[in-house]
């Protein structure tokens, strides 16, 4: 356990920029944009008349309406964090078993009594748990700061932020939903994580190319062969990956639920799963046949990555 923690620490130190600075920058951008929009409003509307009216209208709405929409706004603002997190994890995994082979520091790491399994596990845990947790914490901090700024604005036009939204919207529920969604997505996307680690473990150079080219070539061949056989264009690897993302438990898009436009899990393109953002729907995906097949594929990729790592040296 002590060794695993030391290895995770090492990953964090090496990737501080991606894992810590990136979410902080996104949080900063959110706050700067909020302030800029306030100054823009104030610049064109000295008395803040429009803003005052908007707040008044909102205060007249029933509490349930404000609670539901408040939660949608909170969850919706996580979208940018989620997309950037996906990019960070993608490139982190691509480099995870490649960078130390490239700079030959693998010879140092392998001189320490940490097994290859533990090393690969530490990298997988950083991608699946540590990175989402850091993004999640920074997201919460950002929302707290934004709530403070918004409250000050509401106070400045003479309304009470406590009765308007602070006491109505339950932030814990939104934050909890997001955390569950992040961790469930880590499991859901294990086959892709496994593939990236596998590529990272053997690519002689430019792991990005090795990660992207084989599936592209494979899918194009599939489309071509399918087209020759059936003169239709549907089932192929692109379709499978696209569907995988659409079915994922990550909060990624807006769809229609109960006749209202609301945030959705994945993208509501098919009826395989219920796309409404609830814990039950998230677990529904983790307990599905698709997940089982995905885990089997992930296990093959990860075993390959481990096998390669065991044999890897500097040359």
């Amino acid at each position, binding site marked *: 356990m002590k060794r695993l923690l030391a290895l995770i620490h090492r990953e964090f130190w090496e990737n501080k920029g991606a894992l810590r600075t990136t979410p902080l920058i996104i949080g900063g951008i959110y706050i700067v944009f909020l302030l800029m929009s306030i100054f823009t409003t104030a610049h064109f509307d000295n008395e803040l008349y429009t803003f005052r009216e908007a707040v008044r209208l909102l205060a007249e709405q029933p509490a349930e309406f404000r609670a539901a929409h408040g939660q949608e706004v909170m969850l919706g603002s996580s979208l940018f964090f989620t997309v950037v997190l996906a990019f960070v994890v993608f490139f982190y995994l691509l480099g995870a078993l490649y960078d130390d082979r490239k700079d030959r520091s693998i010879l140092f790491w392998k*001189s*320490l*009594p940490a*097994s290859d399994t533990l090393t690969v596990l530490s990298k997988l845990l950083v991608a699946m748990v540590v990175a989402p947790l850091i993004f999640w914490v920074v997201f919460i901090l950002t929302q707290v700061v934004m709530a403070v700024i918004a409250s000050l604005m509401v106070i400045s036009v003479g309304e009470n932020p406590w009765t308007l939204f602070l006491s109505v919207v339950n932030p814990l529920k939104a934050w909890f939903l997001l955390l569950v969604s992040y961790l469930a997505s880590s499991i859901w996307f294990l086959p892709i994580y496994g593939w990236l680690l596998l590529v990272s473990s053997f690519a002689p150079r430019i792991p990005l190319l090795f990660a992207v080219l084989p599936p592209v070539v494979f899918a194009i061949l599939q489309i071509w062969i399918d087209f020759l056989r059936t003169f239709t264009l549907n089932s192929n690897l692109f379709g499978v990956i696209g569907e995988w993302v659409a079915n994922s438990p990550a909060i990624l898009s807006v769809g229609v639920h109960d006749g209202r436009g609301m945030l959705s899990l994945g993208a509501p393109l098919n009826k395989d799963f219920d796309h409404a953002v609830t814990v039950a729907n998230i677990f529904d995906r983790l307990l599905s046949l698709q997940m089982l097949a995905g885990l089997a594929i992930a296990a093959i990729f990860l075993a390959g990555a481990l096998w390669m790592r065991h044999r890897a040296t500097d040359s």
Partner: protein
Amino acid sequence: MTPIVSARGLTKRYGRTLAVDHIDLEIPPGRIVGLVGPNGAGKTSALKAILGLATYDGELSVLGKDPSRQRAALMEDVCFIADVAVLPRWIRVSQLIDVTEGIHPRFSRARCLEYLAETKVTLDHKVKQLSKGMVAQLHLALVMAIDARLLVLDEPTLGLDILYRKQFYTSLLNDYFDEERTIIITTHQVEEIEHILTDLIFIRDGRIALQATMEEVEQRYAELLVRPDVADAARALGPLYERELFGRHIFLYDNVSRDRLAGLGELHTPSVADLFVATMKGGAS
């Protein structure tokens, strides 16, 4: 005493080439072994097998363990410096010490800091800010702070200037080595390590060309300096190797009694470098 390293028929193939060709080897504890050979002779391949960094054929046991299967467990008792430049460049010295302490049960932070205090390396330095010599000092400080039974150094001083090289081997000998420990060193700069070695192994074309203790080397080999007029007489005694220097002939003999040689000219114990050249060029071992 159980040997630290024991190999039977150790073989490493790259495709059809044999980098290591059925080597039998036994290294007892408390030795400093110099592994010497020309480029591509199979030194690094043999060391990689010993360190569990490569697959191999044949039998190999290091500290009673199978290195290809038990690398992690083996590394609790074995340290190695593969090259001067393998410490990760992005890491801070303090982080390097933290992570080593977290992974290695036999690492002593206090000792490492002691060694580092004698250098210009500080805890705030990043490895990429250090000169090559300082990186080598840092790596040596890390390794010497680990209470290991076998230390493997593969060209540890490559590219360092003479001051760093001298200091490297001095601290290794004074602060680290004792009867419990074994050190295996490969280097091209044999002159610098020959006085610290207890054993010598020459490797050529994946085979062991010579394996002897330094005492055996002194007993077996003799270098004779003669004037040209007695060269033929000297040649008749069957030297391993002959060269000329400033008009004098220098012969190197294996197992020829010193009494027979002494009458012909000046007798010396050959340097490891000369012995190496003679063995590689002379053929016989």
